């Protein structure tokens, strides 16, 4: 069913329309949350909070903007708030706070795991505004225009943040870029 129609039906109180929206976006919302938080339980908790917020405040959604833009704005804000709360209680970096889940797929080699850890660590070391754009761009493949709307800034600000983020990642992952890809 068309997304706009689903939202309209949901706003009129149709719970099955809301369920369809949740099913459509739950993977993206959980994964974006996971990229920010690096913790499965917390990512799921944030995703639940996000959909509950969407359900309770559907009246404030303006169909002028895309539903996904509105949704991801809530996701990003919730994740950043969670990270700020976490910082208050601990000075340890993300990796040390919440190590990656144990590898339950034996065919994934140690080397691949190590690569993932390096990439995660490089992204986590970026400043918050650069990390946010790189995660939305790389993992959610959102357009610059959508990212600008989500983060309430200009498209050129997104371009600059991405440029700086990639410059930094290039330096941090230099050895791996040559080894694995080129």
């Amino acid at each position, binding site marked *: 069913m068309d997304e706009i129609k689903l939202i309209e039906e949901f706003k009129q109180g149709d719970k099955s329309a809301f369920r369809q929206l949740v099913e459509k976006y739950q993977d993206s919302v959980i994964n974006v949350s996971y990229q920010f938080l690096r913790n499965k339980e917390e990512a799921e908790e944030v995703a639940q909070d996000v959909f509950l917020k969407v*359900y309770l405040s559907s009246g404030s959604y303006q169909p002028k903007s895309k539903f996904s833009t509105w949704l991801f704005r809530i996701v990003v804000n919730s994740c950043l708030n969670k990270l700020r709360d976490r910082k208050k209680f601990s000075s340890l970096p993300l990796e040390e706070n919440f190590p*990656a889940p144990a590898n339950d797929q034996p065919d994934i080699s140690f080397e691949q795991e190590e*690569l993932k850890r390096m990439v995660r660590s490089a*992204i986590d070391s970026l400043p918050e505004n650069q990390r946010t754009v790189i995660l939305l761009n*790389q993992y959610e493949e959102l357009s610059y225009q959508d990212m600008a709307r989500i983060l309430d800034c200009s498209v050129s600000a997104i371009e600059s943040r991405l*440029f700086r983020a*990639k410059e930094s990642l290039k330096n941090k992952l230099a050895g791996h*870029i040559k080894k694995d890809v*080129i």
Partner: protein
Amino acid sequence: MRCRKARKKISALLDGEAGEREKERITSHLRACKTCEEELKTLSALSILLEKGQESIKPSPYFWNKLEQRIVQAEESKSVFGNLWEKLNHVFIPATATVVLLIGLYIGIQLGDFVYSSIDKILNPERVTLVQQEVDQSLHLDTLDDFPRESIGQIYSALLAENNLSE
């Protein structure tokens, strides 16, 4: 196009975000500049590396059930608080409005009285004296004139006169 600007735009080119004109300008620069061409290769390799480093998770099988439960709870508490608020509104709003009205009335009366008497004193000092004489006569204070000085009657008379003047 200069190298710095071209490098900034390479990401947009790779992400399919460059417009037709911009795409032409970047590609013509890349053809002429080996360093920027190398940068394009590095950035596309970085993108692949970041993709490889991606770790995705799946929602738990009870995701919807948990959410549905939370929605029911939220709606219940919303309706409990909503009803309570509605009931409180029926009492609090009229009560507050009445208190505010009474306070306003009191302040208005006091203010009006003060302003009127002050203006009256300034504009009609003679009338004040006349009023004072009328008060003296109506209370028969002249009967206290015969009392000796510093007697209770004289002190009372003096106090009343003082009080009338200050009003």
